[in-house]
């Protein structure tokens, strides 16, 4: 299983995706799955959205690495704290203190475009390559697809302006890690809907054009096909529901014709949904050229709580047999689609 192999091997997983595709959820689930598989993992958010905290049942996360799940720590990178750390690391501690005193840190990270991203990426690099008390894997909840390439390449962009000096040096080290297929993998979260699929394909192309190691697509919220193989029978019953009424009568189910009509209509909607998702997933698979596409089921309760993240992590840690196979439904996760 490609995703499984990635979970066991990678040092850094960068998770991106179009807004609303569950990028943060996928990042959290990947981290928990890696933890389940015995790896010491850090999951990092960089956009100050506090999206991870709730998924781990916490009010917030900050610039301290804190335990959030089995073998998993969480971190919300703060650009200002990163700037102070960064300056300290390169022997500019007095400057860091002066900046803090003058409350200019925020201003500088806001004013020098890309510098904020450089610091955020720099922090992720530091955590991924930390020698002592470090991690086997860092999972980054990165900016959305539209911004991820400039984000990851920010160190280089600034390095082009900064021809010498520590920024340049660090940019080269960051680049080495990001370009290394053995250590780094970019994962795109997607949902089986038209525009997200189109944007995922664009995202894969732009990441590849930037020579970033795209590793996998996670198709999130896939509707399970509970009626697989019985489409013809359902179509026949929709025309003539008499056999269904007989079956109901024999079993004493107390379902009249209108109720059976509702059930058949709901089944038809569900089949349409499944068929549409299957078509989109086929387009996705065809468009990403051999990239593994891993499916996660739609969870009826939504994904907002640790138990749901664990359910998804369970899928990732021990994925379903073959991609594209009829999705089995986990007991806790009754599938219904969001289009």
């Amino acid at each position: 299983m490609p995703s499984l192999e990635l979970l066991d091997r990678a040092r850094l997983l960068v998770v991106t995706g179009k807004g609303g595709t569950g990028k943060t959820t996928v990042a959290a689930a990947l981290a928990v799955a890696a933890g389940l598989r015995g790896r010491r993992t850090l999951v990092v958010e960089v956009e100050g959205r506090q999206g991870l905290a709730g998924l781990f049942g916490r009010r917030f996360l900050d610039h301290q690495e804190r335990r959030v799940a089995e073998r998993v720590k969480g971190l919300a990178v703060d650009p200002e704290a990163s700037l102070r750390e960064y300056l300290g690391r390169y022997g500019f501690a007095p400057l860091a203190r002066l900046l803090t005193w003058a409350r200019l840190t925020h201003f500088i990270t806001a004013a020098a475009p890309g510098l904020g991203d450089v610091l955020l990426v720099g922090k992720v690099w530091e955590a991924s390559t930390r020698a002592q008390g470090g991690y086997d894997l860092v999972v980054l909840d990165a900016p959305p697809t539209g911004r991820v390439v400039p984000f990851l390449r920010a160190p280089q962009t600034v390095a082009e302006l900064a021809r010498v000096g520590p920024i340049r040096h660090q940019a080269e080290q960051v680049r080495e890690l990001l370009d290394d297929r053995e250590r780094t993998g970019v994962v795109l979260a997607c949902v089986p809907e038209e525009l997200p699929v189109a944007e995922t394909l664009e995202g894969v192309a732009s990441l590849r054009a930037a020579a970033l190691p795209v590793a996998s697509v996670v198709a999130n919220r896939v509707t399970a096909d509970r009626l697989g193989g019985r489409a013809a029978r359902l179509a026949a019953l929709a025309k003539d529901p008499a056999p269904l009424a007989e079956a109901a009568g024999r079993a004493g189910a107390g379902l009249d014709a209108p109720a059976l009509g509702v059930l058949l209509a709901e089944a038809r909607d569900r089949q349409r949904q499944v068929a549409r998702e299957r078509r989109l997933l086929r387009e996705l698979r065809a468009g990403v050229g051999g990239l593994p596409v891993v499916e996660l089921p739609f969870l009826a309760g939504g994904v907002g709580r640790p138990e749901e993240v664990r359910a998804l992590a369970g899928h990732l840690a021990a994925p379903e047999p073959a991609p594209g196979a009829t999705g089995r439904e986990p007991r806790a996760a009754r599938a219904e689609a969001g289009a």
Partner: protein
Amino acid sequence: MSPAATRTAAVARAASPLAELARSARIVVCCGSGGVGKTSTAAAVALWAAEAGRRTCVLTIDPARRLAQALGLDLLSNSPRPVTGKGLPAGGPGSLDAMMLDMRRTFDEVIERYARDEEQADRILANRFYQRLSSTLAGTQEYMAMEKLYELHESQRYDLLVVDTPPTRSALDFLDAPDNLNELLDARAFRLLIAPAQRIGRGYLRGLNMATTAMTRMVRRVTGSELLADVGEFFAAFEGMYDGFKERARLVYDQLKHPSTAFVVVATPEEAALREAAFFAGRLAADRMPLGALVVNRVHQSGPVPEVPAAARRRLAAGGADGRLLADLLELHDGLEALAAAERRRVRSLLASVPNLGVVTVPLLADDVHDVQGLRRLGGYLFAEPAAPRKQG
């Protein structure tokens, strides 16, 4: 769950609050988190208003160009163009234009407007720091969208402007953008840092001067580049333009607060989207912005099916192929019903936190909205009469 409960699948509502907005508002701002159908909602509201006879323009600042896909526009433009889609009415007083904001071009126009002369404008436009600032600084996009919105509003060319915003987080920047950008452009402290020597002559400032000079040296060592020189040059070139910027930002902000503007928060019944919607509604209330309505897209609905006892279900499952199929259909229905109920609960708890918010629910549609027909179908739900029975399926 009782059949009666499932029949009232939509959250109870009075007349569609959107109808009033689309008839009388001058500006409608659609906001919400990513992937909730904001763009389609904005376009459907605009289409409905146009068909109701108003001269309407819909603007998007979404770089994903989703509106383009929905409206058959495929170019980034900085002026509105008539929407040409199949099924648009030819006559009537109403009209529908659309534009996707070219943020960079708008920023350039703003510079050109406020510059003393062409020379100052050229100096700024050629500055490397400006070129980066105008395309990368968070909030710039929102600020420019508001700028364009205000410009179109002032032009009086339209009765109604409908704006589609980027996802919530940025949409908040959208309220802050005028302040943030002004803070940046007007940051005297920063200008001090860049070019302290010429300005500060007075004795008591000399100590500060020395400190900032030392800092500048260190910053130069860290960045090892002409970055700071570019920044300094940018601020120098900007001298004298701050007041114009500030005044304009204030006008824009006032217009957003005006009763003829309405914010529409768009969500889906998922936990995360509703949380964002609640957060945004709270933020709008705090800024005393006119909140018009909540639109919840992609709501699941189940039809009325009587409860089937477990024993009967077991007999069905043990019966022939049709019996097993029926058992599966019942299970499918249970799942759908539970999902619909969970969604209603989530929407209700959001509404409890935001008093007096009109809500419009749109059922999960069988197809993505990507043409005028789709927008009109969506509009049918957005502007439905209160008691309109929902067709199943």
